[in-house]
């Protein structure tokens, strides 16, 4: 047996290594947050959240239309992607133990590894070319394609976590299979599925590449699905690659707004899926 002193030393060393790994993981995160806040905070004002961008050379202006556009495009993506993704996940969990199920699973895995810019090209071909214009709808389709595979896989995993005893309890009460799947199994997994939806929404809201040639950009407010739409990420990209220093400042402020938006979304999700009972 090893001596107590030696085991204490090993314990101390291992705890130290874990702490080191933790700080190594935290350094990039904290420095990123610090950079965005310190450079972006000065540019924040009420009008930055509500106004549309000012033309070059003029001061003021904001990214109100880009915030609205990001929410709009992500909203369209959710309308398309959430039913398909969650529905596919339910199917895989309940009926997926077949060769067909395996092929869907494999496809979802491949699809989740496709670079987002490629997904953008697909949406360009599917929506932009036939409609002959860039549109919010095309951006929504691109983001939905990104959401579906991860959503399907995580929904499947979450449903498989629901204990079989609950399904049996429901069936033994004379509840048909389909209603058991919907009202008991899906309902029990709903908290986790909400979290999965929000994670995919947060990820979609942060995408730039698939929006560049689908929803494009817009200097004005837009609420029509068949028109080009501004989005925070594309706006950040445009500001950041511009030659004007004051636009660089706007890029930092917009990045901060995007962080706040995603943070607010996940807080809302936590709140919505909180436990109903104590």
């Amino acid at each position, binding site marked *: 047996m090893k001596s107590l002193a030696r085991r204490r030393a090993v314990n101390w060393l291992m705890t130290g290594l874990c702490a080191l790994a933790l700080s190594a993981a935290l350094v990039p995160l904290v420095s990123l947050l610090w950079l965005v806040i310190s450079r972006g905070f000065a540019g924040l004002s009420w009008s930055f959240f509500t106004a549309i961008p000012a033309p070059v050379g003029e001061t003021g202006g904001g990214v109100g239309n880009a915030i609205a556009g990001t929410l709009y495009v992500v909203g369209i993506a959710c309308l398309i992607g959430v039913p398909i993704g969650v529905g596919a996940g339910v199917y895989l969990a309940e009926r997926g*133990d077949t060769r067909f199920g395996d092929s869907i699973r494999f496809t979802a895995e491949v699809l989740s590894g496709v670079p987002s810019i490629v997904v953008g090209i697909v949406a360009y071909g599917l929506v932009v070319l036939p409609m002959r214009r860039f549109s919010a709808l095309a951006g929504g389709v691109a983001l939905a394609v990104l959401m579906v595979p991860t959503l399907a896989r995580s929904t499947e995993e979450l449903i498989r976590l629901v*204990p079989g*005893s*609950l399904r*049996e*309890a*429901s*069936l*033994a*009460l*004379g*509840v*048909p299979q389909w*209603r*058991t799947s919907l*009202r*008991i199994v899906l*309902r*029990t997994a*709903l908290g986790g599925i909400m979290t999965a939806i929000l994670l995919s929404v947060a990820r979609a809201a942060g995408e730039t590449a698939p929006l560049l040639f689908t929803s494009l950009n817009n200097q004005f407010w837009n609420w029509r699905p068949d028109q080009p739409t501004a989005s925070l990420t594309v706006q950040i990209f445009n500001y950041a690659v511009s030659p004007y220093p004051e636009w660089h400042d706007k890029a930092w402020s917009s990045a901060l707004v995007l962080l706040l938006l995603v943070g607010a979304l996940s807080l809302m999700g936590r709140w919505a899926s909180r436990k*109903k*009972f*104590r």
Partner: protein
Amino acid sequence: MQKLAAPKIEVKALNAWFKQNHALRNVSLTVPENSVLAIIGPSGCGKSTFVRCLNRMHELVPGARQSGKVLVDGQDLHARRVDPVNLRRRVGMVFQRPNPFPTMSIFDNVVAGLKLNGVHGDYPQLVESSLRQAALWDEVKDRLRHSALSLSGGQQQRLCIARALAVEPEVLLMDEPASALDPIATARIEELIRELRESLTIVIVTHNMQQAARVSDATAFFYMGELIEHGSTEQIFTNPREPRTEDYVTGKFG
């Protein structure tokens, strides 16, 4: 044993398989109305499979097959016009581990069988009578809107019994209903079984021989998928015909 009562359940030459595994071999027995049948036997002897054949839960397991006949009130469960979903409303089941629905309140758990099937009715009245029947009402009447998971294990199991009773079954199957509970909770469940016997027919699987002796009218001893002996509880425990039954009830094996 009540010889005069009408048979509620008749099982004729029942065989059951899980893929290649022959889990039940040629079992035949009869359960009279308003009686309690205890099923005893070592683990893996087919006890649970047997009760799961009585409400057609067995066929839900992938690879499961069966042959033979099960009749409830003289009606073959596997007749083409029998809907397993309707059957399970007549033949209720309580499982080994308490399994209340975690997303529902105590109230909603009791009426789950009706609510999920879209049956309307006087829910508050039904909740009270079911919980009273399950001897749980006094403990939970002030917190019906709390989560079912806020109850103790024994209370959860009685909640599951109330949930099964709320759909007003004629037969109640209990698959080791007290094996996950402490002695006090077990005593309450056993008391409950003796009361419920007035209004329905009960088949209870148990590992606990004393429990079988305390609650049942008749006892069936299963071993390796076969029904070894079936008779009145008194006879099985005091004067078994089969040596294997005697060895089991006296604790020589199993």
